[in-house]
């Protein structure tokens, strides 16, 4: 369904008039004189980018765990224990199985009395209710920005926005292959999708650590409306 557009013609005609010309119907993509963003971490190897990411996590109050697919279940469990277990909400995402987490998420959590809720497109209201009461939310980064320590999440019907926002603690899995120098590479990748006519996710989150504020006397408070604590788990996947 397309939306309505109101008052556009007069509004834009007025802008063109102020600019001293008639309205513009076509414009080629601009070429820029400056492109400083390409130089940042230009020649860094993947391992060097991981180092940058690890270092940046200190600045953004985020724990980071390095692991591989074999060790992932036990390392993830350690973070969950550290966060007090109780209840976990995850996306409905085949990648959890690919990373060998099926046994952990089903039998082991049941035995350990950890409640697991998997996002279910058929139950929109229940999804929000569960996300609101879950202690921990687990999501997966699509592309990860070393410079700023940022995970990027794409929403979909199986991947609700609330999983990374409502629970008190957030765990984001970061496949090592997704790590790039900075936001520049993510923006280009998304721009390409747009130019290819793909529908990009209705919500793209660039998440850099837990929520925080310095609104009271400029004193940093970690944990405001979103998660209070965050951990990245980097998985060696190549």
């Amino acid at each position, binding site marked *: 369904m397309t*939306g*309505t*557009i*109101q008052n*556009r013609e007069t*509004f*834009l005609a007025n*802008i063109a008039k*102020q*600019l001293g010309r008639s*309205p*513009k119907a*076509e*414009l080629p993509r*601009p070429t*820029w*004189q*400056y492109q*400083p*963003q390409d130089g940042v971490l230009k020649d860094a190897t993947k391992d060097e980018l991981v180092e940058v990411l690890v270092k940046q996590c200190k600045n*953004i109050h985020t724990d980071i765990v390095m692991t591989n697919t074999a060790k992932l279940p036990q390392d993830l469990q350690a973070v969950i224990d550290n966060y007090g277990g109780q209840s976990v909400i995850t996306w409905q995402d085949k990648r959890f199985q690919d990373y060998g987490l099926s046994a952990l998420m089903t039998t082991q959590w049941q035995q350990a009395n950890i409640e697991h809720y998997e996002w279910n*497109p058929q139950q*929109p209201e229940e*999804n*929000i209710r569960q996300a609101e009461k879950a202690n921990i939310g687990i999501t997966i980064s699509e592309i990860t*920005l070393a410079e*700023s320590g940022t995970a990027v999440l794409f*929403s979909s*019907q199986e991947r*609700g926005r*609330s999983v990374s*926002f409502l629970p008190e603690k957030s765990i984001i899995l970061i496949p090592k292959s997704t790590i790039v120098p900075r*936001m520049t590479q*993510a*923006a280009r990748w*998304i*721009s390409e999708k*747009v130019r290819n006519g793909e*529908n990009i996710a*209705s*919500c*793209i*989150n*660039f998440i*850099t*650590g837990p*929520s*925080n*504020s*310095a*609104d*009271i*006397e*400029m004193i940093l*408070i970690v*944990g*405001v*409306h*979103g*998660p209070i604590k965050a951990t990245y788990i980097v998985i060696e996947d190549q």
Partner: protein
Amino acid sequence: MAMKTSEDRFNQRVTKELDNQFMRGAVSSAQERFQTRRLQQAEELGHWEEWRSHGEEIRKHVLENLDYYLYQLSENVSKRGGHVFFAQTAQEATDYIQGIAKKKEAAKIVKSKSMVTEEINLNAALEELGCEVIETDLGEYILQVADHEPPSHIVVPALHKNKEQIRDVFKEKQGYKQSEKPEELALYVREKLRNEYLTADIGITGCNFAIAESGSITLVTNEGNADLVTALPKTQITVMGMERIVPSFEEMEVLVSLLTRSAVGQKLTSYITTLTGIKDEGDSDGPEEFHLVIVDNGRSNILGGEFQPILQCIRCAACVNACPVYRHVGGHTYGSIYSGPVGVVLSPLLGGYDDFKELPYASTLCGACTDACPVKIPLHQLIHRHRQVIVENEGKAPVSEKLLMKAFGLGASSPSLYKIATKMASPAMSPFTKDNTISKGPGPLKAWTEARDFPAPNKDSFRDWMKQRTKGGKS
């Protein structure tokens, strides 16, 4: 709250704010921290001047082609199921949003921080309908509970309040029982607002950057409140100033990199969110209905004129944090929701010279703002230009300056009078002079010497000195 935040006269505001010792301490330490962090980030990033030039060229290009990009944006928002409303005036914008609130029978509305909604006085329009409007940014929420106090800083709205005052506001208004520790205050607000997000009928946001090519809006926060405001209520309304737009994700990325470093000295804030249209089919969260309201409200009058560069602004407040005048008088003195150098330039343009004619004089023209600006707006030149307009076209120069200039004009237009005047200056000022400076000047000098000393006139005039020098060959 509309753009104008005070009915007091400018001088009354200055006097009052200069006496506010907590505010002055808070502002100067905040300025130092912001400045240090901004400079550290710029250095760490490297090639900062190139980054600024790139930011500038993007913003200039967008303004030159604004009609094209707004057209493209509206097409793409509509393709993804969003409604777009172009509002020429504040009234048109608030009427449209009131219409949505009525149709939705909205009882509760949650909002994330937005300067343009302050500018168009949206909260009052919605409260008129009986809606409960809740600001969710921590600083904005504090001010709202404190009987709608105006913000004193674009990025840290409650900068002028200390934690004890904030505790007392919550105690008095909401029966808050805990301490003044910032963590406890924040946790209290977190719990209080959580339920509001879940039960609100409408979420309202501003817009840091709209992306024309994809029809997306970008929201930049640290608290995560904008994400809850847009994920949970069924209807989302985003209000944007018409110039807050970029061609594609690639330019958004550059401006966000400049914004977060310049505003708070972070590489990126905790949450940068791009939202495109309504939620996708089958999504459980996100809005079923999305309205984008694009506001002119005086901006098009700036376009095409000599003040056009101010529309490059990305609202980072780096200029505010660099300004020596802001440091002393704080945000409330400006009497506008836009304070500091950007407020000095923007407020008279959007709100008229009648209410804001003094603001261009709240500047030393030192140019620190221009140096700090990540998109290279020549702020101090625009401030200077305002003064020229005020004197030349508006006839509204402050009285003491007018007298001074008139006297100087009279004296300077006649050689003999000029000679007498320069000879007389030293003895005439001697009663006011101590150690070669004047700290309590009479008449037109009073306004100047209230804030700083004025050098006493030399005993010899330059002409006399020159004459002596040519006569004697050496001085």
